[in-house]
């Protein structure tokens, strides 16, 4: 009996270890994104002396389509960002104008936060824009996690030199992501917390982005609600709808 359990254990661990690192990243990404999703969240920019809150509604479909609407504060309410593949537009209702943003804007801070435009509209993909390699495992916040290193592909539209992703073994959830520049210096750390049931999935509902050189500052995204695999037609992600969506 003991031999049997030992054999079973070895077989199981082999199975898991042999699981392709790319497949782990793909599954972890799918858990957070679904085929499509619709969400409401609150972003809080935190600094030692002050904080600012931004309320957001977002819609996303696959890797190509994304729409973000700001619902608060009043100053920015109604402003929207539309991404279709490699193009990014910004709707400014106050001046009644759609502004096409240059590609260099992707790595810019989004609304003064520690997240970039790319983090929000997800132009680059941790699945398709990187080579993945399983480096081992470690314990993060009591969760047994895989450590996977992501190295960008040659032609990928990314600025990071390397990403370390820590994915929980049991549910394949992103737990910790470390972003390094091309010289190998740590730039940002994202901690994913508050794993609970939301929108029918058990996922982290709180994302904290912490810049490496500014330990006292961070930006927190807290999901208020999210629905996965909702039916959103492609036409939803249009310049026409960006101006109308509420």
């Amino acid at each position, binding site marked *: 009996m003991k031999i049997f359990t030992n054999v079973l254990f070895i077989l199981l661990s082999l199975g898991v270890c042999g699981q392709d690192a790319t497949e782990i990243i793909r599954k972890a990404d799918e858990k957070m994104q679904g085929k499509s999703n619709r969400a409401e969240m609150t972003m809080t920019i935190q*600094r030692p002396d002050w904080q600012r809150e931004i309320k957001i509604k977002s819609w996303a479909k696959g890797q190509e389509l994304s729409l973000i609407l700001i619902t608060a504060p009043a*100053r920015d309410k109604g402003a929207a960002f539309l991404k*279709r593949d490699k193009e990014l537009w910004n709707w400014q209702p106050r001046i009644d104008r759609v502004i096409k943003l*240059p*590609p260099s804007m992707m790595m810019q801070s989004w609304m003064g936060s520690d997240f970039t435009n790319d983090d929000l509209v997800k132009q680059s993909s941790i699945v398709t824009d990187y080579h993945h390699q399983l480096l081992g495992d470690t314990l993060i916040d009591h969760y047994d996690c895989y450590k996977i290193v992501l190295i960008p592909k040659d032609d990928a539209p990314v600025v990071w030199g390397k990403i370390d992703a820590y994915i929980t073994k049991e549910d394949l959830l992103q737990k910790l992501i470390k972003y390094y520049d091309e010289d190998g210096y740590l730039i940002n750390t994202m901690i994913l917390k508050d794993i609970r049931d939301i929108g029918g999935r058990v996922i982290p509902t709180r994302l904290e982005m912490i810049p490496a050189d500014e330990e006292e500052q961070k930006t927190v995204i807290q999901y208020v609600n999210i629905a996965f695999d909702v039916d959103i037609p492609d036409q939803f992600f249009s*310049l026409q709808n960006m101006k109308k969506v509420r």
Partner: protein
Amino acid sequence: MKTGLKCLLLTILIGYSRTQAQEKEIKWELSGYVKDLRTLFFVDGMDSVVTDNLLHNRLNFQWYAHENLTARIELRNRIFYGELVRQIPRFGRLPDINNDFFDLSFNLIDDRSLVFNTTIDRIYLEYNKNNWEVRVGRQRINWGINLAWNPNDVFNAYSFFDFDYEERPGSDAIRIKKYTGIASSMELAANITDDMDEWVVAGLWKMNKWNYDFQFLAGVARQDIVLGSGWAGSIKDAGFKGEFTWFKPLNDHEEGAFETFLVSLSADYSFVNGLYLNGSFLINTGLESAAGLEGFNTLNFDRLDTKRVLPFPYATFLQTSYPVNPLLTAAFSWMTFPGEASFFVNPTLTASVFSNFDLDLIGQIFYEKKEKGYEANSPAFFIRIKWSF
């Protein structure tokens, strides 16, 4: 005067009832801001500084009347007071401008020391069904692409120097638009007027190809045949935008008529640290080269014309901005005019003091070449606080 007051009260009243309606299904929305703008003019040849104050309230009211129908009213209430109001005879006529068919500008108070003006600059109905969008009423028809100069903006031109009116004026017009794709559309617009000299009717076709937005326009604008095009795209990681319009007078012998080809190209780039650069130039082939700043005297800022947003045949523009921190942004704009005779600088500091509460420090300084080198010509500095709701 009474009409203006009624409109104001009505809007506020309806806005309040919106809070009553709360969450269920929001049928109407009220937003806007209150701004206080203090101006310091250092007028040439005067020992003291002239101050000017403007208390400015904007109300944006939207009523979602029906699934397909939205009504919109936006108005600006402005109270002017200070030395400038007292020094300029009949100051009240300055804000009380009406360039449109309907006179929706009202001076509620017009004293020697205080002027209270209410102007409705948007009032329209919008009908949306499937891919169609029809707007009737005073609206902004914004066809421009660039930041500084917009040769394609044939309906309502704006001046970069008029920084305190970011919404820009509207036009009494009818606009019919059909969205033909995700980022493409066709539209036809005409302003409402009983003066044929002021008539603007034009069509705009927008399309998206090779990751570029393209647009083509044709029509008649204030006695000129207009043909133009514009684009927004990128070269590598930098944004690359352009607009050009050819204005050909219907009658060359009309007084003031001139043919011109207006071109403005721009490029912009954002560095990872947040530093933003925007460079642009404007060519206006129909204008003669003017030395110095006298050319500005020929402009009518209350009634800007796309052909004459600047009185020069060419100009260059450079803007840089940098977020010192998420609450503080520093920016600097620099505009040069022909012949090295003059240039314009515009430093600004924008601070978010609290959520929805901003403080701006703005400088507008024209320099002119004199015998001893460049001298500032009546520099103006502005302090602006703004509360948005």
